């Protein structure tokens, strides 16, 4: 078991590609995506009922180390402010393959 950071990001489904770009930029090579998440936040309700994923979120989970986490978070903040979404960081124990 290794100590690591789990970053969970919920943002607009259409913006998930940009989040992946940010993650990969800092060398993290693994992530998981839950494609369809609905919800409510500052920008109102996302029912997930539209035809073009504008009213729908996705969740992306990535486990990484401390430096990677810090880099990602720094770049994520203006992104989430501009687009939409939240980010949570948790300390986890990680089973290394």
């Amino acid at each position, binding site marked *: 078991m290794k100590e690591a950071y789990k970053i969970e990001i919920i943002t*607009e489904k*259409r913006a998930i590609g940009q989040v992946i770009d940010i993650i990969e930029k800092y060398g993290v090579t693994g992530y998981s995506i839950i494609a*369809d998440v609905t919800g409510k936040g500052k*920008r109102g309700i996302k*029912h997930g009922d539209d035809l073009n994923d*504008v009213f729908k979120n996705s969740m992306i989970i990535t486990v990484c180390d401390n430096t990677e986490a810090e880099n990602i978070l720094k770049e994520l903040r203006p992104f989430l402010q501009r*687009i*939409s979404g939240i980010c949570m960081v948790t300390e986890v124990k990680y089973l290394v393959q």
Partner: protein
Amino acid sequence: MNVFELFQNFLNPPVLFFFLGLIAIGMKSNLEIPQPLPKFFSLYLLFSIGMKGGAELHKSGFNSSVIAVLLLAISMSALIPLYTFFILKRKIDIHNAAALAATYGSVSAVTFITAVSFLQSNQMPFGGHMVAAMALMESPAIIAAVVLHKLYFKEENTLMETSLTHTIKDAFTEGSIVMILGSLVIGFVGGEKGYEAVKPFTGDIFKGVLCLFLLDMGLVAARRLKDLRKTGFFTLVFALLVPIVNAFIAIGLSKLLNLSHGDALMFTVLCASASYIAVPAAMRVAIPQSTPGIYVSMSLAITFPFNVVVGIPLYYYIIQYFI
């Protein structure tokens, strides 16, 4: 066609299913067409009219009048944002003004499809190139609105600035546009024979699928109506008046170009309709400061039902008597 017949549009099944959707949400029913089926129906409908339009274009061929209509369609899509943007800028913030300008310049495929089904019931043909017109009208409005937004809004935060070329690229690679253009070309290449092979799927069951799709549209529109309570009276008036103004311009131009009644109706419906698929998708990237709760709601919960229930038969009536 008299007033009674006009009213008949209201009574045809697809439109009634739209109202069933509104009523279901009003009753707080949990009725829903589960995702991703509505998304699939929308692809199916684009596929169907694309194949049909392409096959008809194969028969009729291109000629100068077809080219003229297509150029006119592109121009209308690019010009409507111009006049609407300056009206809107006085009343609402510049981001939503640009997004709304794009919304009303671009087109609604479902309104177009409902008009197709309306013309079918009235046994009136229209040219396959009108499908091409629809596909070509989606993007110019987006580009025009983004240009206007860039001219009038100097952004400090250049971190994630989206270039105009990026917007243009996005506008042409959006799934719904690739689907309609692709089907149109394949329908054109396949001709009569290709179309016959897929007709039981794209043609025969079309109206039944449209019922279920409009049911879903009713459910979604009713949910969006709540968002509109917050926006003012102005947006309501705008969402009802602009389609009428655009329709009148379109009818006038149709007369000038001597379009057939069917083509004139389709062109009018395109100009009068407001986008709620391609435009919101583009705006989230190009103008993320805009609020989809405003422009999607106006387009979907006001302009769309207005066009489907009142607009289409009204424009049809006017076209028959004045062209």
